């Protein structure tokens, strides 16, 4: 995992903006902001946390096994490594 000095910013649904505080996952970071994100397994294999990545880059902490499109990410097992814009379902 890359250790970042500069904080990256996360923009959700074009409305909520916050900076990523090195939480364990993007899902946890969004939950801290009281954003309603679907989840079940929290381990990358069920797909409930499927989120659209509009811009930016994420890095996976465990191999994502759930079925997602090329422009989608699994929030439960990734962290942003650049400023990201995402859209929840």
């Amino acid at each position: 995992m890359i250790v970042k000095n500069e904080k990256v910013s996360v923009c959700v649904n074009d409305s909520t903006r916050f900076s990523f505080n090195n939480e364990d996952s993007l899902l946890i970071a969004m939950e801290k902001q009281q954003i309603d994100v679907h989840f079940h397994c929290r381990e990358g294999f069920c797909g409930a946390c499927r989120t659209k990545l509009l811009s930016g880059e994420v890095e996976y902490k465990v191999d994502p096994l759930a079925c997602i499109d090329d422009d989608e990410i699994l929030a439960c097992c990734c962290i942003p490594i650049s400023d990201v814009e995402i859209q929840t379902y």
Partner: protein
Amino acid sequence: MKYTTFNQKTTDTMKEPMFFGDPVNVARYDQQKHPIFEKLIEKQISFFWRPEEVDVSKDRVDFQKLTDAEKHIFTSNLKYQTLLDSVQGRSPNIAFLPIISLPELETWVETWSFFETIHSRSYTHILRNLFSNPSEVFDDIVVNEEIKRRATDISKYYDDLIFYTQLYQTRGEGVYTIDGETHEVNLRVLKKKLFLCMNSVNALEAIRFYVSFACTFAFAERELMEGNSKIIRLIARDENIHLTSTQHILNLWMKGKDDPEMAEIAKECEQEAKDIFLLAVSQEKEWAKYLFKDGSMLGLNEEILCQYVEYIANQRMAAIGMGQPFNVKGNPLPWMNNYLTSDNVQVAPQETEISSYLVGQIDSEVASGDFEEFEL
């Protein structure tokens, strides 16, 4: 084309489609056309569990405390799940293995089926503890009209695919009249049957368990039947991974990343596939009605359960490009998530002895007031 258990022809599995290519010969995983299946095998095996490790003895006392309506809910759900896993413990093997062309997919299907047999064995473990004679419960599964109706819809796509595969592999393409019925057998027809069958299995893994899961976890919220709940959590985790596999198969076809003919068929059968899913949704809702015919249980009623089915269906239909046909915003049963997360499911012995381990964790996240709002 005759099936062979060891195809002596040199094949390049990197060029084979998932189904209806050359039969698999060497079970090798050093090179994989679709590496996801090898990853799913690893993950599934890492979930290995044995029903006997879960202590269900306290459930016997709890069961006596349930009302008759609640006993009906509990036992009926176990019957339905027993049916589902009876089908799933054998059918992927019998229907898919004879037509699979990739070693990693072949082994995935075998691994998947094996875990379904663990689920089946766990129902016996649960029922033996609750009833001095569990055979009454098991015997009812094949005569209970409510369950039979579902069994027909679940098994018919498998049976159809299996029958046509048998004709194709023994007689080849052609038109055959058997017992007065005419069957046109060719590869295109078979692929269509495979596509519909996979959609039916996907719907099964996606939603057919969830009414039953919700009831189980609603009992657990009241600190009842916790041994059972622990087993069902392990089953739910496995079912999630099975669902992921069928979603991958369907999406590989639809996105043209496997057999191009399957991409065509997916387009052609789009509506039929969607109807299969929607029928499963409506059957689940009918199941909720049947469960609550003698009365509800604390924390759940038919309406909220049906909303939950729609909520789950939306997510799972969207995952395979079917959109979100139901108008539900937000999760109607938020406490369900506490039972569907993977991280605190373990079968460590110290944990099964202290049944409050899980409950404590869940209590801390769900205020007891949340639960009292539900009407009976």
